[in-house]
């Protein structure tokens, strides 16, 4: 597809066109039609924000297309194809979890926010499972997701938590939207967006309102030998684990405890606790389904065009507040909740 289409035709319009007559996309096309009626300026700006990434290949816009590969404990990508879109479950637990997890993440973007896949252009979603021997990680390689099986002592398979799958796929969304630099505060925002949309995918799938959700990232990927619930908590950063081997969850909840470090790209997985907690505070102040209120506001901010690659916490906070004002009005409870949340984590807007 020529790149010019990317900036002229809004992705949600493409979504709608592509979704017409396809029963599998009934919800997606309904959401897209809704967006079209609103003619939302925030969404229109998104097309410009997305003009930088270069698209390859001819993915069909508006169509969910998943491919799950098996690396067979080797560290080579993508591995052999295990399951393709529409195929029945393989019986391979990790492969089927990845398939479902990608579908749930796609559904949040498409049905709630009218976005066609991570790039807004229907990019096919590829994942590889059984990567490496005793491999203790999951990552996004710039093109696809990769999941290890864990070492069995600290970690089990990384697909065991839907939030890990949605976290990784959200790195794809970030790459094709703000492309936040993976260093320092912009890197912590990059991480935080993966955690935020990661938990929203799970909350939406389970129908959990903000009040009763766990707000945990990576629950279920530790073995029972580890003293810990999950990798991170948006509700209470710094409390997800406290273990002899792993140490204590190092995440701060507020700027007062911001960690200056040179490791982990300047603590991108540590200081993400601060914007994570701001999102939690905004979502619980509003109550109900977090993907509709606070999630919608964060999404609007991401695609507003105001979040540049070197964005810091203060600028991002201001952008979320602007997004809340634009969608819900100045003086709305949404705008108030967002301002209050950032103020409580030490990033006044």
């Amino acid at each position: 597809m020529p790149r010019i289409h990317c900036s002229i035709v809004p992705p949600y319009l493409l979504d709608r066109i592509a979704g017409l007559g396809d029963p599998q996309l009934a919800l997606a096309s309904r959401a897209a039609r809704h967006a079209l009626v609103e003619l939302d300026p925030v969404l229109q700006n998104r097309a410009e924000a997305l003009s930088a990434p270069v698209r390859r290949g001819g993915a069909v816009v508006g169509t969910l297309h998943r491919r799950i590969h098996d690396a067979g404990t080797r560290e080579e990508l993508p591995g052999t194809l295990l399951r393709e879109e529409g195929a029945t479950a393989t019986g391979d637990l990790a492969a089927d979890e990845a398939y479902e997890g990608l579908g749930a993440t796609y559904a949040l973007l498409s049905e709630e926010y009218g976005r066609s896949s991570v790039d807004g252009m229907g990019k096919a979603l590829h994942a590889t499972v059984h990567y490496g021997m005793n491999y203790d990680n999951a990552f996004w390689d710039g093109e696809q997701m990769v999941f290890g099986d864990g070492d069995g002592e600290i970690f089990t398979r990384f697909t065991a938590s839907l939030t890990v799958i949605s976290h990784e796929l959200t790195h794809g969304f970030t790459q094709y939207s703000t492309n936040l630099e993976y260093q320092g505060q912009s890197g912590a925002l990059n991480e935080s967006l993966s955690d935020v949309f990661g938990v929203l995918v799970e909350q939406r799938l389970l129908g959990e309102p903000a009040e009763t959700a766990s707000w945990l990232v990576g629950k279920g990927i530790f073995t029972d030998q580890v003293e810990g619930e999950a990798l991170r908590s948006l509700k209470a950063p710094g409390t997800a684990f406290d273990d002899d081997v792993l140490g204590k969850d190092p995440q701060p909840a507020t700027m007062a405890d911001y960690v200056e470090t040179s490791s982990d790209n300047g603590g991108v997985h540590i200081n993400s606790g601060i914007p994570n907690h701001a999102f939690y505070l905004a979502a619980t102040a509003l109550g109900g389904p977090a993907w509709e209120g606070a999630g919608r506001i964060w999404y609007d901010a991401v695609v507003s065009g105001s979040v540049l690659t070197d964005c810091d916490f203060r600028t991002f906070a201001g952008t979320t507040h602007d997004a809340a004002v634009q969608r819900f009005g100045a003086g709305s409870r949404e705008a108030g909740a967002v301002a209050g949340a950032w103020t409580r984590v030490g990033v006044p807007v």
Partner: protein
Amino acid sequence: MRIEIARSGGVGGLTRTWTVDVSSAEAEQRWLPLAEAEVPPVPGDERDRFTYRITIGYTEVHLPESRLEEPWRELIDRARAAAVPATPEDPPSSVEPGTAGTDAVRDPGAQA
């Protein structure tokens, strides 16, 4: 001579540290020249991958996992293997302690 390997990053952001003892000759002839030949990593599109920091004396090299070639893999495997105790019932050193999220260096002190 002790070589220290710290692995940071990953989706969990957990730092794990291992050490391996090598002779001074091996450190100087095999590992130091390799470390000094490494160029600083260029930021790419990879997210949540591991980064290895290898410290040999006063020389420190940072290697993204995606650029980890064979000689380094051998060194890391040796360090990780050295972390496994001879007696499986030895709980304090059954897995080397990591230092979650800080730059602090933990000496395993496992050498009797």
